[in-house]
């Protein structure tokens, strides 16, 4: 078959548009100038030092970490229940129910954030880190369910029955057979939810009540040109962290499926 002309340059342009700006982050993070512009002025690690010294930033990072860890834990636990139920049991209304759980994946986050804000305020729950955790869990749970469903699906049902048959109770079967075999999926779900929560902005901004949260804080700092280079340094670190976490998550997911004797297909990466 003859290849259509221009597809190669289209692809190149597409990838450049996608990743070019991200590549600029580390370049300017090490550039010895407050002005973010070419030509480059020289190499420095000063922005990283300035970033590390910023007390507000450290506070925001700590809050973000608390939120992300909580969201990842809650979403993954909820995901385990939902995925297990959807893979293993048949019950009335399962189809619509699973769709409703997955819906936040495509729902505009702005809508979710506004709706939550109105509801929380009207029932008198004060905005705090807790409300951010609540909102982000809603967003992250579908991801957890998707990842864990694939983990549970690749599990041969006879394995459970074999353990029961050999004298184990349903609970010890879950602990000895199911949990170890889906553990890589659980880890993958945890890491992905952590990453999503860590750089989530809209809900953090709406429901955070002015508490310093990393994504919101970064956005705020861009108003001060002098702060931009240190924010780029922070961004560089976050990109690195995301790549490492997501890569590790996908590695664990694939390993889990292979371990349970399944074939790897689909997935996020």
């Amino acid at each position, binding site marked *: 078959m003859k290849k259509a002309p221009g597809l190669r340059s289209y692809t190149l342009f597409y990838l450049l548009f996608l990743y070019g700006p991200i590549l600029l982050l580390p370049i300017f993070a090490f550039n010895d100038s407050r002005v973010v512009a070419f030509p480059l002025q020289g190499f420095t690690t000063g922005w990283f030092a300035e970033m590390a010294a910023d007390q507000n930033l450290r506070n925001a990072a700590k809050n973000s970490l608390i939120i992300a860890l909580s969201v990842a834990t809650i979403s993954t636990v909820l995901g385990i229940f939902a995925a297990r139920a959807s893979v293993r049991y048949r019950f009335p209304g399962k189809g619509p129910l699973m769709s409703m759980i997955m819906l936040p994946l495509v729902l505009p986050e702005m809508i979710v954030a506004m709706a939550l804000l109105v509801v929380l305020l009207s029932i008198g729950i004060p905005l705090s880190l807790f409300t951010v955790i609540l909102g982000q869990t809603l967003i992250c749970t579908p991801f957890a369910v998707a990842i864990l469903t694939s983990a549970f699906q690749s599990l041969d049902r006879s394995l459970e029955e074999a353990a029961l048959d050999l004298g184990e*109770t349903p609970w010890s079967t879950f602990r000895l057979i199911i949990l170890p*075999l889906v553990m890589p999926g659980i880890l993958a779900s945890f890491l992905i939810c952590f990453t999503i929560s860590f750089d989530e902005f809209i809900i953090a901004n709406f429901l955070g009540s002015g508490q310093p949260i990393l994504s919101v804080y970064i956005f705020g700092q861009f108003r001060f040109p002098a702060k931009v280079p240190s924010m780029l340094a922070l961004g560089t670190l976050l990109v690195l962290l995301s790549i490492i976490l997501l890569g590790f998550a996908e590695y664990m997911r694939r390993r889990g499926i292979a371990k349970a004797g399944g074939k790897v297909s689909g997935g996020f990466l």
Partner: protein
Amino acid sequence: MTATDDRPTMIEFKDVHKYYGDYHALRGINGTIKAGEFFSLLGPSGCGKTTLLRTIAGFEDISSGVIMIDGKDMADVAANVRPTNMVFQSYAIFPHMSVEENVGFGLRKDPRSKEDKARAVAEALEQVGLKGFGKRAAHALSGGQRQRVALARALILKPKVLLLDEPLSALDKKMREHMQVELIKLQRQVGITFILVTHDQEEALVMSDRIAVMFEGEIAQLADPETLYRRPATRKVADFIGTMNFIPASILSEAGDKVEVEAKGLGRVALDIAQAPEKTGETPVVGLRPETLTLLYDDQKAPERETDGVIDEVIYFGDMTYYDVYLGGTDVEVRLSMRNVPGRPVLDVGDRVRVAWSPSALVLFR
């Protein structure tokens, strides 16, 4: 064939029904399985044989009826405390454990010392021919080896009943035949009741003391292999087990223990009532196995009856030749098998032949 009837009953089904929603999967199963018996549940896919096996294991509840194991009603006995163990079709080897850990899994709650358990595992592995495989990872095993691990894992608990769900279907032909013989030997050695689910009639005939043939959630016939083969109870059973020629017939008279029929192409035959097992209301046909028909060569005389025929098809198998023959100038075609012995030429399509047969080999379905 061993005499199984004087052995005590191990499993008893009393009018067992199973519904999945509207679907009636088991429709009144009755019967007993004796202790120490090699029993097979045979039938096409969807006949309920696996469902029945799973109700014995306790993986499926029954909708009504009673299942007794060793004299005890299993209604309220969960799968994990039933005196049964199962070899799964997929073998269900725990992929995150070694061979040793798999085999010893059922001994977790066993009060014996660690050393005793290790000895039991080693013995079980030796029993299935996997001596020295204990440290291997489960996923590094071949299909045949997995099967043996699954066997060892189930047998180490010394169950009263071992359930085997199509255990040989994933193996290639050579390996399957080899494992059939090994399973028979193993069963004799351990003396445990084996219940095998299979769709392979040959496998069931080779391995079993008795066989229950199932269609559409019912047991069509429960008998030893020879009876099943020689005296199938219904046309459907006859069709499922081996090859059977069906010849249209009409019933002329029935008196005492004799039935006289007119079979197309064969003529009038008097049958013993034992050859006409069960009235099912279907159009009468007589059945004849291919090996009970013989071609007569030259001026050979038929020991009992003979019929003229014309060869329509010749299928050469090396040791055997199958002939499809039109009987006595009719459109009734039968298949017969002849052993290829030296000095006996393979015949051609269109050859006129004489076919010898014996009335006692006939079965009447009506």
